């Protein structure tokens, strides 16, 4: 008996909110999920980390009973997604990648509609809506049609809508894409509060930083498979807290630089004219690298330092960049395009 069956029998010792085993899904020729497994303990935040088209959204859609899987099993709070979708729908909230709110309704009317369709007690809806509007800083705009809202306001309303029936399990599909810094931090605080109140959160993200900040555990997804499942701090530790990228005039100079640095920095890699290395001691790394290069008359043309990104995790785990995804996979699995991968850089 697998641990999954064991859990599903309700005799579990562990308090699992979400269990996924061997889940597969195809869209025509495109394999969106190629047998993924993970499980999420109750009252925790779990991150699905991966580039566009990796299969994150497909996994969330299946868990939220929007899509049916082709194979494998998935359960939310012990209810199977195929056999008991209605039991799951009464216990979850979903905020997707696109602000799924009605532009012609006001913010308050949108929340009321979701409350009604969530089978809430009619009298419980207005106070709950008012509370959420207040909490998401939308009270002033509550009675204006949503089409007058800014993008950030729509997204906040979208997340608020997912919370109306106080779901014990919350799915957030790239919740901070398109949010400004202030809104993003507000949402992060909100997620932490929800978890303290006993909510289980599954979130997808393209940003290692976001997963690191929120999730206790992260599954890295690539081409529909889980390629790593660990605490974000462990993933980051494998990379070093700082990544430096040096660009050279040509590949042979870059290779000379790599050879020169390899003796002292074992993780150094070259890719074309770029040399890349990570370390836990950023400033000291730079001083040492520049001194050595200068001594050998190998001055780099460009120099960039940044925190490890999803791309670096990918490079470390797969030897490939994160964005090597075919157009078809992206369309089929993730819907319309979303804004590109963000990367923070600081020139040194």
């Amino acid at each position, binding site marked *: 008996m697998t641990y999954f069956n064991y859990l599903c029998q*309700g005799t*579990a010792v562990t*308090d*699992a*909110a979400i269990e996924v085993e061997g889940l597969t899904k195809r869209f025509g020729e495109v394999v969106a999920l190629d047998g993924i497994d993970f499980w999420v303990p*109750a*009252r925790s935040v779990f991150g699905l980390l991966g580039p566009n088209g990796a299969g994150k959204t497909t996994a969330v*859609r299946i868990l*939220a*009973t*929007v*899509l049916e899987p082709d194979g494998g099993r998935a359960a939310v*709070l*012990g209810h199977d997604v195929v056999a008991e979708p*209605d039991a799951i*729908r*009464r*216990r*979850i909230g*979903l905020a*997707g*990648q*696109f*602000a*799924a*709110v*009605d*532009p*012609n*309704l006001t913010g308050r*009317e949108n929340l009321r*509609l*979701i409350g*009604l*369709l*969530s*089978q*809430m*007690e009619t009298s*419980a809806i207005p106070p*709950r809506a008012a509370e959420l509007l207040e909490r998401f800083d939308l009270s002033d705009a509550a009675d204006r*049609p949503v089409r007058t809202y800014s993008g950030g306001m729509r997204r906040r309303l979208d997340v608020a*809508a997912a919370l109306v*029936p*106080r*779901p*014990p399990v919350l799915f957030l599909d790239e919740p901070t894409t398109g949010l400004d810094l202030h809104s993003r931090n507000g949402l992060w605080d909100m997620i932490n509060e929800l978890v303290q109140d*006993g909510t*289980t959160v599954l979130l997808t993200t393209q940003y290692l930083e976001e997963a690191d900040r929120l999730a206790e555990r992260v599954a890295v997804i690539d081409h529909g498979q889980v390629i790593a499942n660990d605490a974000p701090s462990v993933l980051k530790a494998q990379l070093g807290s700082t990544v430096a990228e040096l660009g050279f005039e040509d590949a042979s100079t870059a290779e000379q630089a790599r050879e020169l640095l390899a003796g002292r920095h074992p993780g150094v890699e070259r890719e074309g004219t770029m040399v890349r290395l990570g370390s836990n001691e950023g400033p000291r790394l730079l001083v040492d690298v520049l001194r050595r290069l200068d001594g050998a008359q190998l001055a780099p043309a460009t120099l960039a330092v940044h925190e490890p990104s999803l791309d670096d995790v990918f490079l470390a785990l797969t030897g490939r960049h994160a964005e090597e995804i075919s157009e078809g996979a992206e369309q089929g699995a993730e*819907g319309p395009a979303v804004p590109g991968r963000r990367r923070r850089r600081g020139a040194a």
Partner: protein
Amino acid sequence: MSVDVATEIVRERSLPVRAIRDALAVTGRNLIAYRRVPQLVVFSTIQPVIFVVMFRYVFGGAIALPVSFFPYVDFLMPGVFVQTVVFGALATAIGLASDMKSGLMERFRSLPMARSAVLAGRTLADLTRNLFVVLLMLAVGFLVGFRLHTDVLGLIGGILLLLAFGYAMSWIFASVGLLVGDPETAQAAAFPLLAPLVFASSLFVPVQSMPGWLQPWANHQPVSVTAKAIRFLTLGDSPFGHSSDVWESLVWIVGILLVFAPLAVRRYRRAI
């Protein structure tokens, strides 16, 4: 499992209760849009008003009814009523396609609502709008000289038949909207469907004036049949409408619903 606290504010309701409550909630939501974006209703009324004015005062003089039972304006108005509900059905396609594109449909599918409510709520809202638009067009008709030749019962029967036909058309366009999933494409896809129904019909000119090969289609296609049925109900028996047209129209309505309601429901199940 201990986390599965039965959330005290979410109730378990039986399916029939949910089906009605949820359909009404979605209907209300769609009607708010009509109230708040009046151009949706204005567009679907201005166009038929222009047709009324054009055919009544510009082309009307040149269109001769082969047998003159009544003035051309009486012939024209039932045609305009039908045209109004047929073009109005486009809104069903556009509304559903917009919900698919915006992601609202996906959210609906993650909620414990009755599956039928999205389609029922959409078509019921469009039925309500049709009632409003039809009454408005009736007023316009009386203004330009349309006169009832039967009685009030005939008029009420005509309006009911018209609304039933509009409702059936809504299901055709619900299927179209869900198939294309994008409001602009829905609009483009609908026109080639509408043109032969609206223009190769008895809406504006008597079928007797058309070439022989076109007459069987123009006589028996659903839009023509319904216009003739309404002529019978409001103007009495004439070469432009018999009691048999009412039955033929009802058969079309039932037939369309039987084919397109399951088709739309199937498309909805597959649509995200």
